[in-house]
């Protein structure tokens, strides 16, 4: 079994210490950080993401794999930065104002990072203005919003309204998710896309960014 394969396999099993160890071995063997990232870490996260989507594994399995991915990422990150390898795109995420339920949002963030995107996680109870400001400040081209309550989901429309008022609608794209929202609701409030789970959120970001 090759070193890269060992990184993926251990990542899928949530063995963070082994992932760190094999990542170091790969670096010592002269394997590029980009290869370790794409073929080892991201590949492993994609596999666990697919298994989660297919209900073959549970949420804790994905979160343990994510910890393992971060263990590897921390080792190669300085090399990636030094060699000027940029992320696949920047996404601002958060739970909408008035809502503190963020398990789903956290999972989306972890899966997006695992897929190689830079994620600016604003946490929960995020005002519409803060979403837009954060996207402008960081150069993020996607805003992802989550809600669990029917009484807070209406705040998502305000983000779209602000983007329209500032002529940013279409330049900064929007995705929503969470139990009470739907594809129809996304369409009604002018949001670009609806994602039904974390894995689908990654696919949707890939589609919107074209990479």
């Amino acid at each position, binding site marked *: 079994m090759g070193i890269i394969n060992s990184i993926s396999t251990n990542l899928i099993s949530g063995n963070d210490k082994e992932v760190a160890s094999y990542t170091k071995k790969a670096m010592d063997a002269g394997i590029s950080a980009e290869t370790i990232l794409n073929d080892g870490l991201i590949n492993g996260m994609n596999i666990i993401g697919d298994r989660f989507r297919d209900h073959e594994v*549970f949420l804790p399995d994905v979160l343990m794999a994510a910890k393992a991915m971060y263990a590897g990422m921390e080792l190669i990150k300085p090399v990636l930065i030094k060699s000027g390898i940029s992320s696949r795109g920047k996404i601002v995420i958060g739970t909408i104002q008035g809502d503190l339920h963020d398990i789903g949002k956290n999972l989306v963030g972890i899966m997006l990072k695992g897929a190689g995107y830079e994620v600016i996680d604003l946490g929960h109870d995020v005002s519409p203005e803060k979403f837009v400001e954060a996207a402008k400040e960081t150069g993020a081209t996607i805003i992802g919003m989550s809600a669990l309550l029917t009484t807070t989901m209406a705040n998502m429309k305000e983000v779209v309204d602000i983007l329209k008022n500032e002529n940013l609608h279409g330049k900064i794209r929007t995705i929503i998710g969470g139990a009470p929202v739907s594809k129809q609701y996304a369409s009604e409030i002018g949001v670009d896309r609806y994602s039904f789970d974390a894995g689908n959120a990654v696919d949707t970001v890939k589609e919107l960014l074209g990479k």
Partner: protein
Amino acid sequence: MREILTIPDESIIPGIEDVMKLQGIPSDSILPQKITDLYNRAFSIFLDTKEPNGLISGISAIDMENILTIAGGNIINSVISSVFRKSNDLALYVFTLGKEISDTINELFDKNEFALGSMLDSIASAAADKGGEYGERFFLSYLKKLGTIAPGHSVLMYSPGYCGWDITGQKKLFRYLKPGDIGISLNDSSLMTPIKSISGVLISGRREIHFLKEDFDFCKTCTGKNCRDRIKRIKQEV
């Protein structure tokens, strides 16, 4: 009546099945050993960091109406508006698990301990729900002692943020309840600090007053349907 409650640990300890439900794990699943181990670790942290506290305060129907009145003098269109008028007794209630457990969850996420942090978060959420149920039982027991509750009556809690009661309703509720006494405050978005807290109004009356049809506008978009479990719970009291 206004009382700070000392809440026994056994009243807020959630069942593992409730925790796993919040983790999205079906009740008929066979848990892998590593998930059981993770649960045990998180549960041990829960026992070390929980600081349960409750506050209950009686409220009149007139004051309750004030809490539910919005700009223009209208009563909000929500389940609570329909139910409270049919009640016999009302009390405001808040429960918190304290600050330390929320801080610990954040620290675990900061240390990339996502699975452990998420499991602790689910245990705390399930425990907060238990804290709400404790309030219902306490109020029922209090009314029984007073002899003001009839056989076949029950107590159920309704919270801002759910079933059409906007989360901003929390501000008015807090004006009456004043839960600063047990260290709970509201932020600008009407969310409670510490996060793992639960608040609402306890409504006593005939069980049937809670058996509402799901024909409100907000029921169409609600996927949680927690009301069904709550109604089922009081039906089982019979």
